[in-house]
């Protein structure tokens, strides 16, 4: 591994994404990406007694599915990086308590999935592991309960609010095998733009997204047009607009090939999702479903995947703290 520029890392041996799996809930099933997910459920409880139990099942089943698809024996997978939004990351640790693989619970809010892929790539390129599994999940009902209001209260949502995705994505990364390759890592810094409105996460995270994106271009000497597509996840409609503006103000035009996973996963008009999707499960399921499939169909050869997270909790919002954002990017090439 070689450091390039300020904060990017070029892997000496590209890490292969040998398999992915995605499972989503009923609202995502009605969305435009439905056909790309491995499994889309009718019932957001998935037969469990609580939403938390359901979310744990999401991540457990997704990880099992990704490992099965990779054709790598579970005992040959040496590390697991997983995280979610619930307090103390219980969805991952409860869901994966029987997985029997050394486990790191990580938290990067909605950036968790790519955070895990960066750590996994470092572990593999650093020869600490050969096969690593990454996963993250979120659940609309459990997240609303924790971060906003209980669902049954019937509160109104402002136009800037985002809809937490019910779903989970998982990827198996390996030194060997075939699949799209992770070539460059650009972990992001925490950037606080002073936004305090927990109903406008896109605006809170866009500053961090711009910082990571522009740093990635400067570090690597690449331009936006070098990529077939640039995906952020999940800034939503407002954050996406802001990122395009912020990048343009620094001389980078990303309008042509940039999109956001939170924008892609729902139909804004039909599904009443306001500013789009969010949550750890958003970029995880969109990458594991849609983007990975596009690589398989050879429609993409080079993609920049950048996950963004709002690093707040329910207490910090109540105490009027501003929301620090973070964004982690990886370059994936066929």
């Amino acid at each position, binding site marked *: 591994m070689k450091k390039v520029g300020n904060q990017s890392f070029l892997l000496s041996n590209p890490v292969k994404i040998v398999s992915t799996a995605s499972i989503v809930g009923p609202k995502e099933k009605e969305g435009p990406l439905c056909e790309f997910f491995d499994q889309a459920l009718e019932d957001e409880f998935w037969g469990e007694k609580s939403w938390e139990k359901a979310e744990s099942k999401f991540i457990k089943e997704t990880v099992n599915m990704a490992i099965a698809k990779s054709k790598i024996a579970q005992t040959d997978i040496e590390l697991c990086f997983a995280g979610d939004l619930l307090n103390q990351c219980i969805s991952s640790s409860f869901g994966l308590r029987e997985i029997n693989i050394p486990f790191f619970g990580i938290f990067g809010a909605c950036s968790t999935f790519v955070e895990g892929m960066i750590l996994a790539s470092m572990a593999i390129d650093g020869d600490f592991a050969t096969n690593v599994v990454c996963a993250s999940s979120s659940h609309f009902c459990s997240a609303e309960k924790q971060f906003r209001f209980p669902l*049954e*209260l*019937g*509160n*109104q949502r402002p*136009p800037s609010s985002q809809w937490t995705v019910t779903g989970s994505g998982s990827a198996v990364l390996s030194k060997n095998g075939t699949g799209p390759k992770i070539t460059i890592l650009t972990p992001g810094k925490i950037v606080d733009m*002073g936004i305090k409105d927990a109903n406008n996460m896109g605006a809170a995270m866009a500053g961090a997204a711009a910082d990571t994106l522009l740093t990635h271009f400067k570090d690597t000497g690449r331009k936006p047009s070098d990529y077939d597509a640039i995906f952020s996840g999940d800034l939503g409609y407002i954050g996406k607009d*802001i990122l395009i*503006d912020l990048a343009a*103000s620094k001389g980078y035009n990303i309008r042509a090939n940039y999109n956001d996973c939170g924008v892609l996963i729902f139909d804004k008009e039909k599904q009443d999702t306001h500013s789009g999707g969010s949550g750890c499960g958003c970029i995880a399921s969109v990458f594991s479903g849609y983007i990975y499939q596009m690589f398989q169909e050879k429609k993409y050869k080079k993609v920049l995947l950048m996950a963004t997270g709002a690093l707040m909790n329910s207490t910090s919002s109540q105490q009027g703290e501003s929301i620090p954002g973070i964004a982690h990017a990886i370059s994936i090439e066929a």
Partner: protein
Amino acid sequence: MKVESKEDYQKYVDKKTPNSPILKNCFNAFLVGGIICSIGQIIFEFCKMRGLEESSSYTVVSILLVFLSAFLTALNIFNRIGKFAGAGSLVPITRFCKFYSISGNGI
């Protein structure tokens, strides 16, 4: 666009972010809140007409409205009313029920 400071950014974000439709929300709240209160008044007048004391009639109104909103919550209808009416459905006594029915759900 130039973002030199957090204040600049906040101003820019405010401009970018669509506002809630306040006039429409206020009208809906007024309408639905008014309907709920009218229902309460009708129950009250009906009880008095049937010879119930005033204080007991008030109790009956509370019981019935709280029951109604719990019932509609179970049918998944009340959250839709809440989304439409906002404070109009939550400021009247129907809100009380929400707390009970929610705690009943283990939330």
